[in-house]
């Protein structure tokens, strides 16, 4: 890849002074790739965790236990009403101070890395919204459809698995797509707890090379590409699950 685009960007720098060194300098290119990989992993894990929390939370909201329902409500209030950046700081510096560290021979390493804290914090942040999105979807499944399942002898769990969830998921998808896209973008905040994701890495690059405007463009281009692909993927899922004639 570098052999392919390298000469063009080196030439561009020589002739115009536009220094996109991450696309021709092998060292900076390596940093760029590492940052991209970290961001993609961060997005993948955070989104996955937020979805798991969303499904479990929505299920817990309809549980019989009042304590459980109250707990889920408190969680949603706490994490929807605080800025994600404060949450990241809280988890990393607040809770991180209490987690054990392992002696690595000369220096100690915390058991939970900054990357893991970012996944936990962002997953919990996005999950709070997902709970509400799934709950709305579950509540939108008509009672009459569930009654039909009940009269056909489905147990509560079977009704939930075969009727409620497939319908609720379809109803939730547009709102879910919005939230997941938003969460994917929020992963750039992990920068402040030193997760070496794209924003953090490019910050290092422009500090070393003073090519701030160029790296800003790269950062923009990177997020536009990643988020566009993610949204396209989610829309494809939406199209695949569309039910002929339903809701019309």
């Amino acid at each position, binding site marked *: 890849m570098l052999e392919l685009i390298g000469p063009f960007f080196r030439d561009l720098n020589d002739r115009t002074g536009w220094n996109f060194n991450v696309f021709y300098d092998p060292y900076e290119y390596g940093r760029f790739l590492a940052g991209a990989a970290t961001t993609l992993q961060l997005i993948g894990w955070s989104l996955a965790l937020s979805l798991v929390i969303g499904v479990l939370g929505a299920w817990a909201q309809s549980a019989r236990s009042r304590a459980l329902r109250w707990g889920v409500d408190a969680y949603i209030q706490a994490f929807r009403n605080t800025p994600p950046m404060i949450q990241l700081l809280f988890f990393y510096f607040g809770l991180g101070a209490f987690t054990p560290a392992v002696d690595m021979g000369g220096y100690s390493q915390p058991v939970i890395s900054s990357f893991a804290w970012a996944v936990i914090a962002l997953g919990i942040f996005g999950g709070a919204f997902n709970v509400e999105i799934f709950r709305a979807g579950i509540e939108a499944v008509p009672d009459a*459809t569930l009654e039909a399942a009940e009269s056909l002898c*489905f147990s509560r769990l079977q009704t939930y698995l075969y009727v409620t969830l497939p319908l609720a998921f379809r109803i939730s998808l547009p709102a879910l797509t919005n939230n997941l896209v938003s969460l994917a973008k929020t992963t750039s905040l992990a920068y402040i707890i030193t997760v070496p994701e794209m924003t953090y890495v490019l910050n290092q690059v422009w500090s070393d090379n003073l090519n701030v405007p160029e790296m800003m463009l790269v950062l923009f281009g990177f997020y536009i590409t990643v988020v566009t692909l993610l949204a396209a993927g989610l829309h494809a899922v939406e199209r695949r699950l569309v039910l002929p004639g*339903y809701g019309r």
Partner: protein
Amino acid sequence: MLFADPIAAGPAAIPQDRRALVSLRDVRKSYGAFEVLKGISLDVGKGEVACIIGPSGSGKSTLIRCINGLSPIQDGSITVDGQEVNDPKLDKLSLRRKVGIVFQQYNLFPHKTVLENVMLAPLKVLREPRAQVEERALSLIAKVRLTGKERAYPGELSGGQQQRVAIARSLAMRPEVMLFDEVTAALDPETVKEVLATIRELAAEGMTCILVTHEMGFAREVAHHVYFTDGGVIVEDGPPDRIFREAQDPRTRQFLSQVL
């Protein structure tokens, strides 16, 4: 011939076995302070077709929903094949397996095809082998005259077609009694005929049926016994000829004079 001739088919002869399959004794049911059912008693024998008619709000639908335990009752008793419906120890599944119900709004599973709708419960609840379930489902779909629509989704079908899928879905559980809750009320006059033809054939085959209906002509034709309800009680009941021709109670007569 797949369907009984609609003109020749009157009520099929009631079988000799007159043991009541569904039996209600002094059933009372309230929503809050409002008493919907004020002491209903009736017996429906095996193979019998019972029609419940009456003005809106007289508790007809509530009555039918109580029979398969969808709505609990406050007093009295309902038994299906000897099982007390409101017995807290009762295994609801064993009761509901005997009782099929078809709703006014079809209530099909919109994310499943016609074939999947019919097969889902026998596969997941009865855990029968797929090949056997599919064979039965296909023959039921043929019976309600929807062959060729197996892969269609409910949203692609007309109301009458959806209602016939709902009937096939219910029959797939091999119930002993079928409850029909105003199943043609949401349909246009033309599709009403298709659905009634399906029910007519079921009745002619000896399926025990309890219908809540506003189709008086149909009730008169297929029913062995007609119940007229008003204000939460059965005002009058008897064979269709007597109810429709020489009703005794003034309320029955007034209602019939308005709808006939």
